[in-house]
């Protein structure tokens, strides 16, 4: 069996007090990440992916945030942990990479200084020279050419892709056990995206790094993920291994994501349009299945909230939240000879 999970998230709920009432950004999600495993979290904008990731590190804590449930890192509870203890974990045992490499570095400091700062925050035995040497090493590890010279550049002297590599280098500075990458490729060109994903995959293999990869693009997932979590309006609507999600998707929302994907293994013009409609307001969720307003397959039962559970006999850890029977799913997900979500009537 696989090793014990490094990170266990149980029934995590994150709400924010807003003018319009309590906004439940994350509503009871569960997952595990093991060393050397890549967990992908996929979903449209606003589905709660970033809030989930940031809550793990305690970055969503604030006066108007309500955080419930449990986040265990290596047996230590983080939701209840004092701020100072969380701070010690950030950057040291958990590294984070953000979406926009253009704005995620402070423009006024040299990269070597910003990377050094991450090390100095946790180690006081490192000299300036040590930190500089380590920064160069890290730059080499993430494939930045001419590392020794470029490490003293300012962020704006780097291209987007190189900056994201620098970001990854910084996140790895103290050899964390868990790496959270929140849409690390969204802001980049397609070719650069592939390079960054390859880098993440390689780091994950070489260092047995547990990785959470957040994205709204299932295409990105296909390259590196072991397991996939599909989120919709703050809840997980389907969870399974990469193959299960790609070849036997159970939830209509996942079908929609797959159908609108550009894939090389398919005849070209077959791409389906994006899922029609917009995600519901988190302040005013529909009763029952939250995908109901956009789901062409909705039926009477859907006004009750389906539980996230195993609904296929053959694959035990493949769960979803849809009332349709397995047979109905297998039939309805076929649109024009491929998996997809048909347009609403």
């Amino acid at each position, binding site marked *: 069996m696989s090793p014990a999970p490094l990170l266990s998230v149980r029934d995590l709920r994150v709400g924010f*007090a*807003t*003018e*319009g009432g309590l*906004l439940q950004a994350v509503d009871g999600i569960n997952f595990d990440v093991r060393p050397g495993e890549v967990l992908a979290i996929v979903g449209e904008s*606003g589905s709660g992916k970033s809030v989930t990731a940031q809550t793990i590190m305690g970055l969503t804590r604030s*006066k*108007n945030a309500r955080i419930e449930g449990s986040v265990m890192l290596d047996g230590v509870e983080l939701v209840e942990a004092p701020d100072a203890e969380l701070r010690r974990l950030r950057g040291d045992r958990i590294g984070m990479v953000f979406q926009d490499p253009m704005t995620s570095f402070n423009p006024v400091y040299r990269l070597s200084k910003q990377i050094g700062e991450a090390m100095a925050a946790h180690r006081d035995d490192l000299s300036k020279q040590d930190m500089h040497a380590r920064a160069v090493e890290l730059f080499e590890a993430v494939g930045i050419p001419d590392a020794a010279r470029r490490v003293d550049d300012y962020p704006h002297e780097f291209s987007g892709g190189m900056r994201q590599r620098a970001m990854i280098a910084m996140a790895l500075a103290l050899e964390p056990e868990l790496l959270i990458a929140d849409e690390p490729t969204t802001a980049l060109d397609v070719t650069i995206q592939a390079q960054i994903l390859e880098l993440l995959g390689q780091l994950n293999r070489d260092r047995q790094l547990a990785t959470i990869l957040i994205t709204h693009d299932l295409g990105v997932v296909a390259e590196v993920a072991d397991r996939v979590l599909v989120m919709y309006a703050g809840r997980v609507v389907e969870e399974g291994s990469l193959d299960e999600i790609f070849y036997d998707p159970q939830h209509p929302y996942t079908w929609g994501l797959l159908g609108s994907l550009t894939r090389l293994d398919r005849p070209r013009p077959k791409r389906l349009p994006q899922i029609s409609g*917009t*995600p519901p*307001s*988190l*302040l005013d969720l529909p009763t029952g299945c939250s995908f109901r307003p956009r789901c062409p397959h909705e039926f009477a039962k859907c006004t009750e909230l389906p539980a996230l559970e195993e609904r296929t006999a053959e694959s035990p850890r493949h769960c979803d939240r849809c009332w349709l029977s397995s047979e109905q799913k297998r039939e309805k997900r076929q649109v024009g000879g491929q998996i997809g979500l048909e347009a609403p009537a």
Partner: protein
Amino acid sequence: MAFDPRPEAAVPAGAPGGALPTAPEGVSASDRGPWYLAYKRFVRNRVAVAFLGLFILIIVFVLAAPVWATHVAHTGPNETHTLEKLHVGGEIREVVTPEGKPIGPQLFGAGGKFFLGADSRLGRDEMVRLMYGGRTSLFIGIVSGLITTIAAVILGLLAGYYKGWVDAIIARTLDVLWSLPVLLFGIALGVSLAVGGLKIGPLELSGGSIWVPILVISIFTVPYVARPIRGEVLALGQKEFVEAAIAQGAGSGRVMFGEILPNLASTIIVFFALNIANNMLFEAALSFLGAGVQPPNSSWGTMISIGEELLTTQPLLAIIPGVMILLTVLSLNIVGDGLRDALDPRAKVRLEAHAGMVEKEGTAV
């Protein structure tokens, strides 16, 4: 700061925003239009409404000057009463003592004469001068505010619309003017014109004319309004409705005045209010130093400089006109701020969101 012509100085957070918030098309939730909404928002701002009331009171006060002068004080602003005596409740008092000390405030003790006392050894009625001086100060502030705003709008429109070399020339010139020490140059031009007068074509001004300070103030405050307007015109030029108008073959005049100008309305209104406030401080500073309103005319600024000499014995002579300036300028600044919040609620929302309160959910429906 004696005065600060930067209109953005009033509330550092968030420059006055662009177009009026318009209701989404086809939505008839509020068919009264954006101006009505802005009006509602303004009226809800108690402080701003109170200070608007104060400003109107001040206007009424200075407009009543001739009435007070003829029916209560029985004297004019420049009439001297050096050797006269006053009956106060059976007592007889000198308006100016032999040592040159002017009489203090009598309120209605002398039937309203010398209500606030006499101004100096010249024995002029302080109250009458305060009312007439206020007229001058407000007139200069408002007229120069108008001139500044109109000039700034035209320059901003030309620069922002034509771009290229027109913009280069206008923007550069504004930059240089903007970086100059305004008060110093205001003084230089003010004194120079006060001594020499002005004659450009048909326009002829004598040194003592109150149009001299008006002109000086207008010239030097233009950049503070024109620069932000230019920026906004540049931004508006990128908007679809402007591009659409150009594509439909609308002439440049049509586009500038028909399409862009209406969208500047809220900015212009806010800047106009703040600009009058700044110009009044500017005028007071010039006049206080003797580079603005020239005698025998009076303004609140000249009254302070006369009163200053008697600060130790009769501090009110300097303080009362100072307080009048403060109240006027304060009310204009607060009203200007209130207008900004009412016309551009986004600026306010940003502030509140910052203030750690609550952020409205981002998803638009």
